[in-house]
């Protein structure tokens, strides 16, 4: 793969060498064939030429033999015949020779001319037909025609004797030229063959070299392939390429197998890879993002910053029939080709352990914070108060559990359930924050948020309460922790030799919290509320000591709620007070006294007072009243709205008020004891609650 350039060159070279080899061989063969043909023709001609060279002397001898036979009156017929065939042979061969190319032209010309002279002389001899002798009984002699024949033969003999050497010489020249030509052709052929053999050898060497080189290249490519495979098998990231159809390429790293629990990645689309593992919305976002990667607006950094798959929660089969949550990190790198984005390289890492670790760290930190927070709160509060809080909180949670278990079907039943839960939790939150146990108060606040969310729903089922149950369990566990720590703290405090002043250590008093603790709790809550809400007010408490123990718990709950309401709703901010010409800080006055019919509690703040109109508006806004109903209410009735469940005049929700459960809880508690509650106000000047409680059956208390 990495060698593809060099490899391609080598292949090209091999092909070129092959073609060259074939061309050279072809050329050698064609030229060689032509040369060989030429040589063969030349050799034939040369033979003819050599044969021709013999004719002049043969003709000359035959003429002499013919003349001698005529002298001795011998039979001449066969000699005549031989001469005739010689002449014909010469004529035939010479004609063939004349048509050959590349002969010595001068010699050829001379030979032609000479033979031209021969022809008429010989023709006269050969044209003789008849008997040259006239026979008598005793003697034979030349006949008349014989004498003419003799004269022709004699002349021809002389002519031949004179010219045979010349003709032979010319023919020898022709023959020599022919020989030279043949020799040259043979020599050319030899050179050609030598050259051909050399070329073949060279090309063979080149081919062998290339073959070796190619082998080496192939080995290198194979090695590279092996290395790639090793990398893909070993790397801990899931690596693959996506093509423009969002399909995974044929090459992918082994780590993917364990990440996705499959091994058929090649050709799989990205969507198929993630489907069933992430929620549909996440998948949708992921696909949109992948699509954007192919666009021209996708800069690497930009895409990295909006990568929705940087920490992807996937649910996987764990192989035992269950599901398992993993966290995968997808990184995308675009691979550019000549025509824009060619592939997108995806690198997937399993970051489950680091995510879980980070979460654990965070939780541990939170825990440490809340523990510290709790410790601080507990160090600042009386262990007895803490104990009584924990008791009442546990009782409260039991009550909450009881409410949760109540069967409910209709919306009204569910709503009632919610309202009950809200009241319980709200008073628990009030107590917790009075004791500065912010970790508990926050947990309860969170539960209240969940309740508020449920309240907003138009339809409710039992399942909607499940998350609430989980949260409650958590709260219970937390409370147990607090209790354990309380025990540890109190054992610390009890140690006689602990140096004085290091830990504030109120002496252990009676088992039940008395009026003194209540006073301390309320003062501490007042200071905290003043600080939290930026209000300046003092709390004056009188007569709490007269409170019978049976009322003490309820009284505490009520006073905490009312104090919070006064701090949040009643007492104005400093600048408002100054503008209203009120002197200095606010005053909250609490008086508990015995009266004829039992007891009376007065709770008064010199704050903004209550506005009947504002209360009515709020009630309408909260759908507690219709507008017509509200219009018909007189001021007294309007003020009484404050005791209706779910009522609050503040829009935003804070830890201390605004849930609309405050006075509701108080009123219920008072009614629970058989008491009554009333409110009076002067807008801009004060709000006053009066609670009347019946006398306690002293014997029962004792």
């Amino acid at each position: 793969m990495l060698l593809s350039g060099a490899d391609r060159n080598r292949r090209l070279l091999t092909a070129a060498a092959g073609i060259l080899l074939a061309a050279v061989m072809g050329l050698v063969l064609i030229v060689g064939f032509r040369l060989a043909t030429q040589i063969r023709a030349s050799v034939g001609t040369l033979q003819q030429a050599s044969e021709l060279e013999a004719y002049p002397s043969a003709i000359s001898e035959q003429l002499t033999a013919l003349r001698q036979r005529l002298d001795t009156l011998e039979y001449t017929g066969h000699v005549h015949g031989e001469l005739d065939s010689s002449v014909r042979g010469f004529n035939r061969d010479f004609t063939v020779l004349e048509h050959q190319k590349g002969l010595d032209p001068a010699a050829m010309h001379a030979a032609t001319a000479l033979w031209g002279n021969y022809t008429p002389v010989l023709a006269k001899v050969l044209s003789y037909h008849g008997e040259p002798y006239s026979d008598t009984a005793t003697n034979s002699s030349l006949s008349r025609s014989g004498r003419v024949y003799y004269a022709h033969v004699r002349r021809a003999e002389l002519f031949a004797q004179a010219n045979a050497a010349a003709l032979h010489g010319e023919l020898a020249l022709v023959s020599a030229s022919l020989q030279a030509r043949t020799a040259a052709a043979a020599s050319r052929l030899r050179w050609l063959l030598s050259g051909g053999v050399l070329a073949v050898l060279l090309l063979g060497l080149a081919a062998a070299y290339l073959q070796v080189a190619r082998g080496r290249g192939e080995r290198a490519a194979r090695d590279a392939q092996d290395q790639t495979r090793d990398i893909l098998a070993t790397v801990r990231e899931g690596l693959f390429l996506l093509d423009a159809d969002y399909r995974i390429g044929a090459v992918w790293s082994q780590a993917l197998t364990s990440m996705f629990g499959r091994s058929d990645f090649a050709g799989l689309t990205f969507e198929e890879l993630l489907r069933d593992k992430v929620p549909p919305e996440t998948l949708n976002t992921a696909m949109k993002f992948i699509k954007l990667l192919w666009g021209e607006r996708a800069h690497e950094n930009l895409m990295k910053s909006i990568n929705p798959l940087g920490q992807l929660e996937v649910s996987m089969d764990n192989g035992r029939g269950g599901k398992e949550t993993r966290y995968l990190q997808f990184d995308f790198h675009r691979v550019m080709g000549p025509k824009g984005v060619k592939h997108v390289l995806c690198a997937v890492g399993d970051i489950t352990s680091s995510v879980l670790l980070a979460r654990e760290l965070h939780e541990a930190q939170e825990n440490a914070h809340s523990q510290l927070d709790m410790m601080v709160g507990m160090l600042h509060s009386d262990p007895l108060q803490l104990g009584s809080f924990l008791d009442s909180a546990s009782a409260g949670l039991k009550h909450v559990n009881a409410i949760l278990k109540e069967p409910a079907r209709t919306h009204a039943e569910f709503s009632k359930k919610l309202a009950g839960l809200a009241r319980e939790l709200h008073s628990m939150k009030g107590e917790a924050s009075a004791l500065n146990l912010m970790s508990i108060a926050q947990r309860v606040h969170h539960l209240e948020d969940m309740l508020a969310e449920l309240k907003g729903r138009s339809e409710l089922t039992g399942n909607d309460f499940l998350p609430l149950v989980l949260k409650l369990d958590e709260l219970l566990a937390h409370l147990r922790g607090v209790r354990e720590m309380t025990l540890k703290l109190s054992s610390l405090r009890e140690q006689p030799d602990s140096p004085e002043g290091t830990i504030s250590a109120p002496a252990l008093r009676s088992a039940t919290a008395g009026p003194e603790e209540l006073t301390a709790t309320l003062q501490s809550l007042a200071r905290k509320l003043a600080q939290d809400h930026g209000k300046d007010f003092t709390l004056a408490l009188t007569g709490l000591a007269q409170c019978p123990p049976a009322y003490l718990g309820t009284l505490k709950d009520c006073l905490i709620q009312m104090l919070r309401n006064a701090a949040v709703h009643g007492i104005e901010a400093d600048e408002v007070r100054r503008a209203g010409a009120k002197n200095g800080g606010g005053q909250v006055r609490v008086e508990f006294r015995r009266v004829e019919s039992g007891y009376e509690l007065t709770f008064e703040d010199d704050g903004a007072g209550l506005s009947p109109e504002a209360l009515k508006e709020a009630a309408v806004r909260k759908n507690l009243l219709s507008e017509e109903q509200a219009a018909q209410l007189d001021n007294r009735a309007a003020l009484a709205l404050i005791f209706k469940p779910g009522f609050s005049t503040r829009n935003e929700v804070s830890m201390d008020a605004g849930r609309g459960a405050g006075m509701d809880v108080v009123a219920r508690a008072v009614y629970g004891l058989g008491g009554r509650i009333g409110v009076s106000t002067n807008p801009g000047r004060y709000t006053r609650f009066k609670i009347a409680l019946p006398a306690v059956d002293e014997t029962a208390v004792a």
Partner: protein
Amino acid sequence: MDTAQDTGTRRTVKLLIVDDSNIVRRRIERSQQFDDLEVVGTAANGIEALELARRTDPDLVTMDLTMPQMDGIECITQLVRLKPEVRILVISALADKATAVEAMERGANGFLNKPFTDRQLNEAIAELMY
């Protein structure tokens, strides 16, 4: 602007700032350090932004995502339809990557996370300007 056109090198880039927070709008306006960038308008919501875009024909828009009346995503959609060549830099506290991808798909060109430094802002603008 005429001189800039005469020199033929760079044209003034017209910037429209869209964010519901007055403080953020002013911050962007003051922090950008480009001589050839002219703020042609600021809008507090999507509807205002579209109106201003029609009037001022901006080249570059910085866009908040969570705004009253018309949010950034819808505004980007309509803005791209109105002026396809406009470049949009989303400046938002992007807790949710899906929203970012959505904005990008609708036609945004860049992202800047709130809170941002002056340098980050200028780099993000520069990337979209040139």
